């Protein structure tokens, strides 16, 4: 291009593009833009660690400072992916250690991280700043000790719900005395007690600390000492929030909380003694995010607290809040955007609380900005769902879990097709949907037709036939992730819509009716997909071809079949089809 801008100018302009979509679009304009863009992309997001290889990434993007990688499929959270399936971090770290010496950020989700990887991270990246391990596993507190000891410029260490083998709390004491850069620490998933004095000193010497989420082992009496040393905190997670009722503890807490003029987010609250909740009332007017999902407190106490939080935007709570509490929420918190209600006793045969569909309907009516919902309950009706849909057409995420599989509309005993149909019809911006209850193929017809912006769909115990799956795969233009369990979906819809799978990140199907033969065929015909059969009963070719596989995970990839499979995973590809048939 004779008349193009000099590279430096283009690079400068591209620097303003933060979204991957924009950068990807830019890189397709012409070869020189592709080249310029790839040299100046600093942040990479890899939605599926097996869709690409470290080598391919490094070859294209030579100067990266932040990586975000996701590993196992979402249903791994619910133990549907057997241990040993994969998503190992080490190959990525070992490749990046050589090629990205100035890497600053690593954010991971559902990956297997070893102490070895953590040690390599801590020693390879001199300017390492941010480590977020969300739902990861495979490491111990020794690995954390390496990070603490060696990452001189660490700003963020967030262990978000990872499964850490907790050998001791000693890791925290590995932060050197001259280490002062900490901005965010989330250790709420850990069990062991850390040295409290080490924690106090750490908090004291880190003036930029904005987020501190403690673990359950830190008792409530010790909180004031920490809060006093960090009045600049914006996000705070308590430990166990219980102690014998003593006025001195209470007044210390009140005073300490009052000193925190910038607190916006609170969490923790294990083992809550309700009498201590009022200690926080002074900060409640500024609170925008409240995670009470571990707080076993009854509705009246919850309402007391929530009524003090008019600026609440995000609430996570247990179903102890009940319909009455949700009604109060809808009248006090008009700014509410996200609501998650978790079950306190999901395995009990009978409901233990008075939380029904009514609570959600009330919130949908009273909170005009509500856009994200996760709701566990025991009964639902089409009427309620239709009401919610009409009240809140601005919903973006709607995840409903009716605890009993295949529960019908409790009023009419009909399937909940029309209710969910109303959701997708009215909520035109819906990006994520999780279904539950009794559902026929009809609901999928509605979804396929109306859910144009839907990116992620979760289905369980639903549908009648392949038609259901066909509706979804042939509709839903924006679908990226589809996860299905225990549905009578089989070969026809899958094979007929094979091309669709290349436009998606991944498809998970477990306990469905997809036969081994169909999987082989799919793998054979679609070389750019990895078709993984996961079956713990032994090699699929020891059973008839028509036998359904236990689990199927299909994802697009440019890296070919993976080489780190355990012996209960088979990749269907041309070679495999010839070898095994």
């Amino acid at each position, binding site marked *: 291009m004779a008349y193009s801008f000099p590279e430096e100018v283009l690079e400068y302009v591209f620097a303003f593009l933060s979204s991957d979509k924009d950068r990807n679009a830019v890189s397709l304009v012409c070869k020189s833009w592709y080249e310029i863009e790839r040299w100046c992309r600093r942040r990479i997001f890899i939605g599926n660690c097996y869709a690409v290889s470290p080598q391919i990434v490094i070859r294209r993007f030579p100067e990266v400072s932040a990586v975000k990688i996701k590993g196992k499929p979402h249903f791994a*959270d619910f*133990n549907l992916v057997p241990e040993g399936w994969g998503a190992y971090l080490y190959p990525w770290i070992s490749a990046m250690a050589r090629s990205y010496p100035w890497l600053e950020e690593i954010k991971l989700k559902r990956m297997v991280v070893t102490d070895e990887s953590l040690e390599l991270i801590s020693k390879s990246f001199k300017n390492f700043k941010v480590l977020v391990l969300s739902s990861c596993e495979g490491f111990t507190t020794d690995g954390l000790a390496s990070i603490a000891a060696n990452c001189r410029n660490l700003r963020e260490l967030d262990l978000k719900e990872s499964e850490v083998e907790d050998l001791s709390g000693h890791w925290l004491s590995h932060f050197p005395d001259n280490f002062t850069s900490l901005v965010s620490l989330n250790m709420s998933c850990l069990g062991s007690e850390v040295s409290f004095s080490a924690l106090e000193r750490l908090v004291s010497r880190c003036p930029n600390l904005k987020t501190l989420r403690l673990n359950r082992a830190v008792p409530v009496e010790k909180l004031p000492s920490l809060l006093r040393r960090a009045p600049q905190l914006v996000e705070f997670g308590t430990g166990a929030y219980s102690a014998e009722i003593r006025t001195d503890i209470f007044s210390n807490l009140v005073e300490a909380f009052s000193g925190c003029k910038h607190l916006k987010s609170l969490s923790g609250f294990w083992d809550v003694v309700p009498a201590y909740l009022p200690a926080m009332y002074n900060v409640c007017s500024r609170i925008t995010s409240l995670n009470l999902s571990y707080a076993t407190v009854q509705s009246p106490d919850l309402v007391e607290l929530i009524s003090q939080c008019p600026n609440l935007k995000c609430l996570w709570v247990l179903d102890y809040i009940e319909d009455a509490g949700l009604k109060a929420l809808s009248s006090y918190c008009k700014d509410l955007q996200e609501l998650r209600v978790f079950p*306190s006793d*999901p395995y009990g045969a009978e409901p233990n609380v008075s939380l029904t569909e009514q609570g959600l309907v009330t919130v949908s009516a009273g909170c005009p900005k509500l856009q994200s919902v996760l709701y566990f309950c025991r009964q639902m009706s089409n009427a309620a769902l239709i009401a919610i849909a009409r009240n809140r057409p601005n919903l973006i995420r709607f995840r409903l879990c009716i605890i009993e599989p295949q529960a019908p509309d409790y009023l009419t005993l009909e399937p909940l097709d029309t209710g969910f149909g109303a959701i997708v019809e009215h909520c035109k911006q819906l990006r994520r949907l999780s279904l539950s209850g009794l559902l026929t193929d009809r609901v999928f017809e509605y979804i396929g037709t109306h859910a144009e912006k839907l990116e992620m769909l979760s289905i369980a115990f639903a549908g009648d036939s392949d038609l259901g799956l066909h509706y979804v795969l042939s509709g839903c233009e924006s679908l990226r992730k589809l996860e299905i369990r225990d549905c009578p979906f089989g070969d*026809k819809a899958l*094979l*007929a819509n094979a091309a669709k799978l290349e436009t998606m990140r991944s498809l998970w199907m477990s306990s469905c009716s997809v036969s081994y*033969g169909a999987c082989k065929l799919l793998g054979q015909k679609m070389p750019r997909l990895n078709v993984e059969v996961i079956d713990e009963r032994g090699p699929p070719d020891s059973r008839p071809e028509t036998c359904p596989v236990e689990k199927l995970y299909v994802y697009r990839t440019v890296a070919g079949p993976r080489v780190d499979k355990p012996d209960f995973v088979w990749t269907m590809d041309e070679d495999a089809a010839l070898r095994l048939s």
Partner: protein
Amino acid sequence: MENSSSSSIVSTESEKNSVLNLKETELRLGLPGSDFLEKKAGTGISLFGKDLKDEGNNGFSQIPLKNLVSGAKRVFSDAIDGSGKWGFSMKGGSEVDLGNGGSENNNTLQSCLAGPSGKEIGNPNPAKPVEDKKNENNSTAPASKAQVVGWPPIRSFRKNTLATNLSKNNVVEGKSGLGCVYVKVSMDGAPYLRKIDLKTYCSYAELSSALEKMFSCFTIGQYAPHGLPGQEHLRENCLKDLLHGSEYVLTYEDKDSDWMLVGDVPWEMFTDSCKRLRIMKGSDATGLAPRAMQKCKSQS
């Protein structure tokens, strides 16, 4: 590929019995929920013609065949037209053939699953599947439901916290259904570990038999194509012999991080205190037994 389906159709009847028997004896690691699906099998295959018409009792209007092909998005008709390459029984590509092929596939699928072929659509009685699960899973106390793996969809961290909360608050007396307690089970020599839910078992015998099934696959020499290089391969002995003989012992790590032999304490006490399990070589486990007994005595 086209031949395999016809041959499987031809030999269906003779295969049927052997397939059924095979299913009875195969090592199924699926948990109660996966059995449930088989009872609904038989509805999953055919989209056209006769099968759709047969399913007339659900009260919903039938989707006319014509609409399905022409009104539906292109892909289906493309699939039919490109019939020679797709599916098991595509002979000529007409809808009728597909319908026929579909029902034939239906039969082979049913024989494979060996379940009743009732077509349950829009079943207004949701209690049925749960009851079936309950009957299969004898170990569940009547008050709590049989637990399907991963349902309701709650993450482990939250589940474990819930279990602790409920036991602390003694919510229901004598209730055993405190959710799931997932523990990791490792076996010396195996390349990866497993996770099991202790609450699905009622006794040491059940646990032991489940572990035998789970880890016996390591003894059948399946490693060859997929195993990691340099890993120890277990001999082809039955794991039962291994466990009951002197080769391997089952041990667990308790709340105090001590390793104990499994079986010394009452079952309930074990499930409350077990953090993880390890199937270790007998030679490594010497000296465990006396300590375990002492500890038990000192605690009681």
